């Protein structure tokens, strides 16, 4: 099951033509909407994009093989989610605000991570998005060439999903699992170290 890796996702993007403000922007749901859990267990199971089912390559995956967080009862979180916290606040927070809460001019991306599919989320980050018109000028840059983002994108995605689902409160995460060797190796390979 390698479906959930970033490489696979990028392959999907390569096969997709995403125009500025295209299909993703047209749906334009309320960027400030808070994710609400599905009512029925069946629906929850079908739509569960959050629950960790397997552990592979140093990170947790959902039943669909999409990266996700795992936070224990005592607050201990997986390494990737913690790493995502750090990388988010280096690369993303100057627009999207602390802890994904949004700013005066960029949406609360913690909600986008829950609302968008994994592949759509990756596509927006890699390709960027432009909404420029009389009312607003929002431009998400293309991060596809930025190793500080792309090598940690699964981490950032998991962190934001944990935030958007309120599994992780605001503030600095305190307890974390040790860094898995698989993640260490993947990081070195991605950064070309």
């Amino acid at each position, binding site marked *: 099951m390698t479906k959930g890796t970033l490489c696979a996702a990028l392959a999907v993007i390569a096969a997709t033509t995403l125009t500025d403000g295209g299909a993703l922007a047209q749906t334009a749901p309320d960027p400030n909407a808070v994710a609400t859990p599905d009512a029925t267990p069946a629906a929850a199971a079908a739509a569960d994009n959050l629950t960790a089912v397997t552990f592979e390559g140093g990170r947790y995956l959902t039943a669909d093989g999409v990266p996700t967080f795992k936070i224990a009862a005592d607050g201990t979180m997986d390494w990737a989610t913690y790493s995502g916290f750090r990388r988010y606040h280096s690369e993303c927070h100057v627009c999207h605000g*602390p802890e994904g809460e949004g700013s005066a001019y960029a949406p609360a991306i913690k909600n986008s991570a829950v609302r968008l599919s994994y592949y759509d989320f990756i596509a927006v980050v890699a390709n960027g998005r432009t909404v420029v018109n009389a009312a607003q000028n929002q431009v998400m840059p293309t991060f596809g*060439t930025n190793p*500080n983002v792309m090598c940690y994108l699964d981490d950032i995605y998991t962190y934001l999903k944990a935030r958007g689902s309120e599994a992780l409160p605001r503030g600095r995460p305190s307890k974390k699992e040790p860094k898995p060797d698989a993640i260490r190796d993947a990081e070195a390979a991605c950064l070309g170290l």
Partner: protein
Amino acid sequence: MNRIILLTTALSLGGALSVSANPALQALIDDPNQWVIQTGDYANQRYSELDQINTGNVADLQVAWTFSTGVLRGHEGSPLVVGDIMYVHSPFPNKVYALDLNDNGKIIWRYEPVQDPTVIPVMCCDTVNRGVAYADGKIFLHQADTTVVALDALTGAVVWSVKNGDPTKGETNTATVMPVKDKLIVGISGGEFGVRGSVTAYNIADGSLAWRGYSMGPDSDTLIDPVNTTHLGKPVGPDSGTNTWEGDQWKIGGGTTWGWYSYDPELNLIYYGSGNPSTWNPSQRPGDNRWSMTIWARDADTGVAKWVYQMTPHDEWDFDGVNEMVLTEQQIGGVDRKLLTHFDRNGFGYTLDRVTGELLVAQKYDPQVNWASEVVMDPASDQYGRPQVVAAYSTQQNGEDVNSTGICPAALGSKDQQPSAYSPKTQLHYVPTNHVCMDYEPFRVSYTAGQPYVGATLAMYPAPDSHGGMGNFIAWDAKEGKIKWSLPEQFSVWSGALATAGDVVFYGTLEGYLKAVDANTGAELYRFKTPSGIIGNVMTYGHGGKQYVAVYSGVGGWAGIGLAAGLTNPNDGLGAVGGYAALSDYTALGGTLTVFALPD
């Protein structure tokens, strides 16, 4: 050796090309009815001789008229008034309006540049612009995409335009420009993108480049004379812009120049500060990283540096040194001195002799500042002029991947670019400040041109064990280095202040209040809630025998990032969110100019 000879040649050439002062512009600056450059005057005092509005009647102030810019993002800077025309600007897309003050603000002309929107996300922290400047019949606008354009002040027609930087490398602009004599002084932004900062002088007549001085690099780039340029009274020596860097890191070294500029016509020196070194991870750039975080004095004609003073060697906290340099004449120890006072992001208020660069005062202007115990003032010490870093708050000493907690101030500084005011009558500086602390965890990042180059994670929160608010508005005695009075504010004070001969000091708040306080006591005399949070600077002008006070509202900028959602306090533990006010509970976006006057 060749380098020194070349520099000497450049010096003599520059001397031959120098021209006399710009008396027409100086006369406009000296006329209190006008406001022709963003800083009000060359000294950056933001002081007006107008006194029609004074402590006795300011409580009667009313809104005279308003104007919407039609733009939502953060509105910094202020309008200008030149004769009967007011010039209003906006953030990206950087619109400029000329309004007829004789005809109820009717729009005489408007200018809106066509800019590639991909510049927007390259601008750290919102698409603000700190305004236009006037000289020689032209309005000068430095656009987000670093295009500097000269517009005919009467028609808005483009006279010339020049590109100062390359946005695809992260070079952008947020600052205003300063006309000096026959030149226009222009800075650059992009410290979070590994941009190497520079100051450029363009000839006002045609936009041709006169000189450019970088913040780091070889002496031929920095326009530093190894023998005659001094740091705290001593020659800096050769290659000072590269020899405190490891390898080629200086080429992406930061030290950008997006703050304010001041000028002393007698000394013919321009003053400004350079920003943080890139990256925010100090372990990736060993050394003092000269000349980031530095106060510069450069010759206006040649750009050659007369003196420099590095406030924060080897920055570990993102304490950009770009804040304004306020030039005053005051007595210290019974002797008249030409002073320069600077409220740095690092929390120290510095007073220097602006002729020589001698350090006279360096004291904390927020008692919460803790990252350094003091700045050493003993010239005999090998630590002279250096802040004494407290190990617990040193993100370098604690190392990569370690979270240093409780550092005061936060990266946005005890004060950011929002300019202070100074009244020669009270001899006090009026300073809008932040009262915010942080946790800071640096880690390794790699450089990609045009991409963020940060390398640290920050968490910010209101200064602990204080009044709970995130700002203060203070009066500061620069001779003593002491706070005279301090007004607590719920949010950071992010607007530029104005002092007047009527002994009234004005400033704006992030909730949107324009406030007037007594220059002597700080007592509040008036407040009015404008349509949005104020991050613009208060200005005043006279027209038809009446004094007006004007300010932009339109929340955004750095304040729109950190404060929009509210800050968390890590001391409260996880889950205690919402203990502090969110700015979004008080204000929403939208750019409006509000003009105040006394009733007829």
